[in-house]
């Protein structure tokens, strides 16, 4: 329930400036804007379904540890280093 509220509050922010994924809070739903990584990292994330434009839900923000995301129809654990490079809105 709590998570729902937060997510609603933040989804208002859709038009705001892109922020790194690390700035999100659990329960928030965001859209990937871009990935600021090397080609290798980008292609890996793309093949796992993390592409610009995709909606994702932050299940857990583990900073400085890993993040837990729900994206498309699965869940993925993402290290802090990668989360920093994913810009979302």
């Amino acid at each position: 329930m709590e998570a729902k509220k937060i997510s609603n509050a933040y989804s208002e922010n859709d038009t705001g400036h892109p922020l790194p994924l690390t700035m999100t809070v659990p329960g928030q739903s965001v859209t990937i804007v871009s990935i600021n990584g090397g080609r290798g990292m980008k292609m890996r994330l793309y093949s796992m379904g993390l592409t610009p434009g995709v909606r994702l839900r932050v299940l857990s923000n583990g900073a400085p540890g890993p993040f837990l995301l729900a994206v498309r129809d699965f869940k993925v654990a993402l290290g802090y280093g990668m989360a920093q490079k994913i810009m979302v809105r």
Partner: protein
Amino acid sequence: MNNTVRKKLIVALAGNPNCGKTSIFNNLTGSRQYVGNWPGVTVEKKEGPCIFGEYDIRVVDLPGTYSLTAYSIDETIARNFVIQERPDVVINVVDASNLERNLYLTTQMLEMEVPLVLALNMIDRAESRGFKIDIGKLSEFLGVPVVTTIGHRNQGTRELLEALVSFSSDKVSRINSGVHYGEEIEEELEKLETLIKDGDEFKDYPSRWVSLKLLEGDEEIGKIMESVCDPYSVAKKERIRGQLLMSQERITHIHGEDAETVLAEKRYGFISGIMKKAVTRPVEDRLYVSDRIDGILTNRVMGLPIFFGMIWLMFKLTFTASEPFMLGIESIQTWVGNSLGRLFTEGSITQGLVVDGIIGGVGSVLVFVPIIWILFFCMALLEDSGYMARAAYIMDEMMQKIGLHGKSFIPMVLGFGCNLPGIMATRTIETTRERIITILIVPFMSCGARLPIYTLFIGAFFGAQGGTVLFSLYLIGILASIILAKLVGKYMLPGGPSPLLLELPPYRIPNLRGALIHTWQRGKVYLKKAGTVILVGCSLVWFGSNFPWTLSYSKNYDALMKKAETEFLLGVEKLKEGTAEYSAAEDAYERGVFLLKSERASEKIEKSYIGTVGKIIEPLVKPLGFDWKAGVSLMSGFVAKEIVVGTLGTIYAVGEPGGSSDSLRKALQQDRWPDGRKIYTPLTAYTFMVFCLLYIPCVATIGVIFQETNSWQWTLFAVFYNVTFAWIVSFGIYQVGSLFGWG
């Protein structure tokens, strides 16, 4: 009988990790390859035959991969098989409950013009989550045959085979639509394709695929280009490169993003188009229940305690459940030893070999097999629950501190069962640096084969605090691995950890049948070892501790016994049998004879070949508080850790007068140094266990370390480092402990 020519077909199973490829492989071939609920279970290519109608099908199970660009060894194996070996048909297994992402690989294979049959697996899960998939439409839009399957229940296997066979006999029906990338990109693709098709350097690869890969900047295709164009066409290479740069620039200019991003987006766009038309999604939140479980299990505060609690519970269960089995086998062992012993002439070589060598040695290892089996069973349940990937997630932050990431934790947990699969599982780790470090630390994870040693010594010397003692051993192993990871990470393979990227599979209730099969598959190895390596080992130890068969003893024991007998007979001549005095004299006589026999037995074993060797190595292990018998058993433990127990069993059985009726546990409790001090105090026992935990990976593990690192240096390092480290730690424990008088 059958005079039609049998048709041969090579079929590969490819798909994302954890989508059920191995389950389907097992269904097709009747094999029992390992299935588990986490990504990266299969790390090798596995083959099996399947006979269907007039077809002899060679089925190949591949590791999972998210794309045809490989980042780790297991992905490379999958990719290379599909791209280079060109199987006749690829069964693309997709997880129907996670279709969108799974189809990404499908689009890549379509571009590669791989002949595909789609196995829409886990259709049960998709349905229970409320997805409705229109198979006909899916097949039509993708241009490939689609069959629904339920891997773990062996459903849809026949339909899959039928689709496979009709597909391969009817090649015309292949209408690969694939992704349309939009006018601008298609134009660029065409330009590249024209250049590529000019000449036959790339004839082995579809030109559209080559162009796409070039646009994406795929390194592998770059290498292919270098190799195929090399000798004669520098100019052509330049032309392609020039066109490529122009095309990439143009795409970036139009779309505002680099080419690889645009291509990925277009592919997912193509997929969502199909999803919209062929799949009805549920309205409500699908991941809700599993979210709640994850909320607890991966919680920042509770996650770690829960993890340790689960591991603790697993071992508790292992020990409690295995105890009745162990006691049972132990009494069978004693009984068989005693009854078999009577069949042979007392004191003959055959009697000794059978009773002391085989039953005393192999038997004492068999006693502990239940514990290994039950541990494997618990591990199988854990692996099938979906928790493994969570453990990797929970541990990521800690692993980062030792220069690794959470994925390295999966091999470590697997290592608790057996180090071999643990080391194999490192294939999913992307960077060589982290992979090598993980390979090196896995042997410090206390495997099932070490449990017999702990159980024996804990049972003999610790009693009630057994649980704590055992827990401390596992902890020491983990600490040792942290130290090693830090050392290697600092001095030998410097560099930082790479970030974690790991899919978390849905939780599922572990499949009992699967867990039992897994337990049997892994457990039977231990039975086999008991019947082979350990049998041979214990027989050798027996021979070594009995030969030379005739010795010149320091005393004439036979004469002494004879003398005692005559003295006894003379002494009791005037006494009546049954009186108190008579029995006192009889007791004294029997004690005397027993002492003589013991003395002879221990002199015999000390003068035997093994005793001689043992005495040579004793100075090496004496600072740790061990005698030569412990030293010899440690040497044998290099072959397989459980042999340590077998060797001790054999040596003590030989060293004991009057057969091996006493359990090995008692023999250890009572063994003494020549000066009368007990050899095994709780401190020595603890030191011994620590040494066994750390000292050397078993032969099989060393072999796999070599295979996986492909380097003698790392293999030798693993051996020497571990032995030295074990010695230093054990020395420290023993000496400090003795200082405090714990001995």
